[in-house]
């Protein structure tokens, strides 16, 4: 790699990199920092549970944050980013991408830089509600950190959606055209299916936890509202949560499957057995993962027939997983196995994953689930799969690719100690968990009946072994980096007689075969880096508003009054990076985003200090939150101003691809699920609403006819948008500008009317959110559906304004007007959603 070592010394490079390999490395660093802290929390748990007494924490309330953060961080901020990091690091090379990078290199940077802030929010939250955050507990618990936890996860969800769209486009459209689907490495397939799962499932959890945020802060009645009679639909949360979280567990394991295939076939010197079966298994797992979510809910009292359906689907999904294990085993047959450290991890994975799968079978059988649900059996099951499974695959892969990352070999002996300590620790702890569960020990317990003590102590011993092994992991890698053996022969790595065997890079192949010279530049983009920081501003804004009681009803209690040191230190590090980047950018256009980076980081630090230390910020605490949105809008204005001035020649992508609408279609897939779920939630709420909380006839409380007129206005805007696209396709630039202008006007009228309607409704008090509103459940559904839709219209108008301004400068022509079509498709989608929403919310 050309720039090893330089990355960590250059803040400008770290913040602005658009190079997938560099971004991949940054993902690894972030993941391992998070894993170290989450691992420490695990050790705290195990230390506390050494005996039934209070060994470290004062009580259950104190203890709640340990398992919540251990789980949340490991799932969202360690395993998923490790998958994304490995994907970034390997996939552009595995698919011989035409631009030698991810499809959208700048969005790649944006997606990454949202994660450190998301991590910060989650760590600051110290939320005590379990990573599953079931309602009504998560609504009624006063800890303000829960709002932070929610905001952090929404940020990480947006980050992984952007990243997933990027992977899908890279693999589907960005690869070398001569590489067919069935030529792709299995890691590519794994990441591809994983990315589709994330795109389609993330909206569900975002909606679920945003609804919790609204119940906590805006007096809505989605799950629990004392003034609406208490619980409204607590189980609905579980459906929404698990509709995402079940595919999420496959998201955590499928990239690992791909890596195991790489490691086993390399170290056994054999091609993977049954490639087609492996691909088929990935696809089957992907599809089935959406059909099994309620197997987490067998004890909630759901209809027995529903349980049969989900049990059957869950049995079905066991089959492709089992097939993969047999395929891996058979790959060993006839091989010439070398037992290098990566292979040790891969081999161990086979057995650990089988144990995990077997323990999973038990809990799928409803009668057995009665005894095992919410006990340590389940904890054993998922730790076998994720810790003894996925995480092992990542260990193995990082060791294997260490020469590629650093040009050196890791230290062999310490890596073997890491492996043995880790594996023995895994077996000790997770077997103890399984036995504890079999004996009926429930989860998330701070104290326990004495008879469980022996097994708890066994689990604790194993946990400390795992913790110790981590140290050997870092020692092995860093010793290798600083003092290790340099790689001599990249075609005979680890004595395997082969190298990494990436397909020939696209540029090389074009040069050899066609004599064409494809020039690819990995340019820095501080705009992208600042986008990651600036996109966190609305979240800091929400935090500031929630924390200072701006919303109708805040569950704001118990805010600590001391200054939170760790978060401020963390933000100070980021501030130093931005200052460093700014200093290097003075005199270039890059200085502006660097300045925004500094401003947003400073604002964030002020919020943290202000909200958490209860220090009134110049006496205007309630409005500081709004300031964030202003800065955010300023950034957007500055960005568009710069972008529209740049002279953009055709990019590498443009040269080889025509008709890029698939990019927006992939994004719209996520949006379709998002609105589909919102509509579904509205229907479910109506069906389950207690008498008096839902209006019998909407025309009594809503202005149906005027809104119908507003709907017509929006339809007109779709018409003018279509005319605009038609115009530019014929090369008519003047008409393009004209019709874009009309579309903006119609869209603005629509939004203006909606704002007017909201103010009216709040005034009338029937469809409203203040205490004493007549129809709390109906109002909650109304505002979340029309509100999210309205936000989408607003974003659409902002995008339209940008396209309009560019069009006025003559930036589009007959051949190149992709962004006009993108905005057009987005706009039509938003309009179509409105037609459906209007019908369901106002008419039916």
């Amino acid at each position, binding site marked *: 790699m050309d720039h090893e070592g330089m990355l960590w010394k250059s803040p400008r490079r770290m913040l602005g990199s658009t190079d997938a390999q560099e971004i991949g490395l940054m993902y690894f660093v972030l993941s391992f920092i998070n894993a170290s802290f989450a691992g420490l929390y695990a050790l705290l748990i195990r230390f506390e549970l050494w005996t*039934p*007494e*209070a060994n470290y924490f004062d*009580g*259950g*309330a104190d203890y*709640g944050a340990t398992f919540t953060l251990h789980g949340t961080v490991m799932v969202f901020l360690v395993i998923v980013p490790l998958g994304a990091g490995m994907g970034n690091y390997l996939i552009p090379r595995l698919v011989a991408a035409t631009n030698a990078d991810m499809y959208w290199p700048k969005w790649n940077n944006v997606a990454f830089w949202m994660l450190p802030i998301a991590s910060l929010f989650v760590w600051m939250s110290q939320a*005590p*509600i*379990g990573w599953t955050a*079931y309602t*009504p*507990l998560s609504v*009624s*618990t006063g800890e303000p950190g829960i709002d932070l936890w929610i905001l952090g996860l929404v940020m990480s969800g947006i980050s992984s959606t952007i990243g997933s769209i990027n992977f899908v486009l890279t693999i589907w459209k960005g690869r070398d055209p001569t590489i067919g689907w069935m030529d792709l490495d299995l890691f590519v397939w794994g990441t591809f299916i994983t990315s589709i799962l994330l795109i389609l499932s993330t909206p569900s959890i975002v909606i679920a936890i945003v609804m919790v945020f609204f119940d906590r802060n805006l007096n809505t009645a989605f799950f*629990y509202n004392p003034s609406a009679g*208490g*619980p409204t639909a*607590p*189980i609905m949360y579980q459906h929404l949560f698990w509709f995402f979280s079940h595919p999420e567990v496959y998201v955590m394991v499928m990239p690992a499957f791909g890596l195991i295939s790489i490691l086993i076939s390399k170290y056994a010197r054999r091609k993977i057995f*049954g490639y087609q*079966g492996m691909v088929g298994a990935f696809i089957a797992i992907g599809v089935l993962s959406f059909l099994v979510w309620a197997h987490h809910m067998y*004890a*909630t*009292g759901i209809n*027995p027939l529903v349980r*049969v359906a989900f*049990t059957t689907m869950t*049995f079905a999904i066991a*089959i492709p997983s*089992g*097939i993969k*294990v047999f395929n891996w*085993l*058979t790959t060993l*047959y*006839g*091989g*010439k196995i070398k*037992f290098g450290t990566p292979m040790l991890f891969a*081999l161990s994975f*086979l*057995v650990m994953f*089988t*144990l995990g799968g077997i323990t999973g*079978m*038990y809990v799928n*059988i*409803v*009668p*057995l689930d*009665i*005894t095992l649900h*919410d*006990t340590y059996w389940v904890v054993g099951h998922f730790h076998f799969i994720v810790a003894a499974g996925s995480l092992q695959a990542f260990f193995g892969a990082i060791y294997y690719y260490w020469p590629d990352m650093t040009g050196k070999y890791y230290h062999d002996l310490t890596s073997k100690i890491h492996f043995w300590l880790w594996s023995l620790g895994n077996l000790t702890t997770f077997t103890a968990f399984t036995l504890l569960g079999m*004996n*009926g020990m*429930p989860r998330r317990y701070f*104290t326990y*009946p004495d008879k469980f003590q022996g097994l708890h102590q066994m689990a604790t011993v194993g946990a400390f072994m795992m913790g110790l092994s981590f140290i050997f992991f870092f020692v092995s890698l860093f010793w290798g980096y600083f003092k290790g053996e340099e790689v001599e022969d990249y075609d005979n790595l680890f004595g395997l007689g082969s190298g990494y065997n990436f397909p020939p890079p696209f540029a090389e192949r074009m040069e050899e075969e066609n004599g064409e010279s494809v020039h690819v530049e990995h340019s820095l983009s501080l705009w992208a880096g600042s986008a990651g920081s600036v996109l966190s501003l609305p979240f800091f804004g929400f935090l500031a508003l929630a924390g200072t009681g701006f919303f109708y009803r805040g569950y704001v209690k118990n805010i600590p009054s001391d200054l939170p040191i760790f978060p401020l230190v963390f933000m100070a590090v980021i501030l130093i990076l931005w200052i460093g980047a700014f200093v290097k950018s003075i005199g270039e256009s890059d200085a502006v985003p660097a300045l925004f980076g500094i401003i947003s980081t400073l604002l964030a630090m002020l919020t943290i200090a202000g909200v958490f230390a209860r220090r009134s910020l110049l006496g205007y605490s309630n409005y500081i939150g709004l300031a964030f949105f202003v800065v955010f809008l300023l950034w957007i204005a500055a960005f568009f101003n710069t972008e529209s001035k740049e002279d953009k020649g055709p990019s590498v992508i443009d040269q080889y691809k025509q008709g890029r609408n698939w990019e927006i279609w992939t994004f719209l897939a996520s949006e379709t699920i998002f609105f589909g779920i919102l509509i579904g939630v509205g229907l479910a709420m109506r069906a389950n609403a207690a008498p008096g909380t839902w209006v019998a006839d909407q025309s009594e409380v809503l202005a149906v006819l005027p809104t119908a007129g507003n709907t017509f206005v929006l339809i007109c805007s779709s018409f003018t948008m279509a005319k605009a696209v038609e115009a530019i396709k014929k090369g008519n630039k003047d008409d393009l500008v004209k019709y874009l202008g009309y579309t903006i006007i119609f869209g603005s009228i629509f939004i203006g009317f909606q704002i007017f309607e909201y103010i009216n409704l709040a005034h009338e008090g029937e469809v409203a959110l203040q205490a004493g509103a007549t129809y709390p459940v109906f109002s909650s559904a109304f505002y979340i559906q029309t509100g999210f839709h309205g936000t989408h219209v607003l974003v659409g108008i902002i995008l339209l304004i940008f396209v309009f301004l560019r069009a006025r400068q003559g930036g589009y022509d007959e051949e190149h007007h992709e962004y006009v079509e993108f905005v057009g498709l987005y706009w039509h989608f938003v309009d179509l959603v409105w037609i459906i929403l209007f019908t369901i919310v106002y008419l039916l």
Partner: protein
Amino acid sequence: MQRKVSLFAFLLIPFLTMVLPTSAESDLSSSYNQLFMLLSLVSFAVLLLVVVLWVYFMYKFREDNEEVEREEIPHSTSRKLEVGWTAVAILIIIILMALSYPILFNETTAAEDPSNFQNPITIVVEGTASWTWKYHLPNGTVIEPVVVQKDAVDVHFTNITLTKDQAYTFIFFNTAPFIHSYFVKGLNIKMDVVPGTNNSLTFIPTKVGANELLCAEFCGALHSQMRGWVNVEEA
């Protein structure tokens, strides 16, 4: 076409018989235990197979081993293997379904044949906002929790005594702003106690003894401290 239809019917009829409730023995916990044992046998067999092959291949095909023949698996064999183990996996799944579905419906009636229930005694079980259990007996008495200090931690025990071979219907009730779950492993009972819903459970305890009650849905600060004993005595 005809063969496909009759094969489908052949499989459908047993499947339907499986999922519809059947009347069989009276004590569910022995069925549960049998199912657990059977699944353990199947799992152990699978695990053994995997581990044996794993060890065997690692040993036989280690790179030091010069003598072994390292042949490619011919295409026809590999096809047979893949189809074979997929078919075996499906068969195992079908067997597990056949064995477990008949008792699947009985979660709300923790015995296999609800018609065995004659004159169940109805008790309302409340999960409270102060992390305790309470029983509301039909005669109006309320069984309150007793606080026991265990190792510097307060645990709330609510104890109830049931009669052997007598049917009971527990109706669950919760006014707390969080979900509890009523879990008595010894009686094979677990049911979420959800605010706003009244889940219920009917069962007949058939063995004398003391059974521990634990809360099995995270409910906040004192989740691990809301417990009790469900004692079963002779009539």
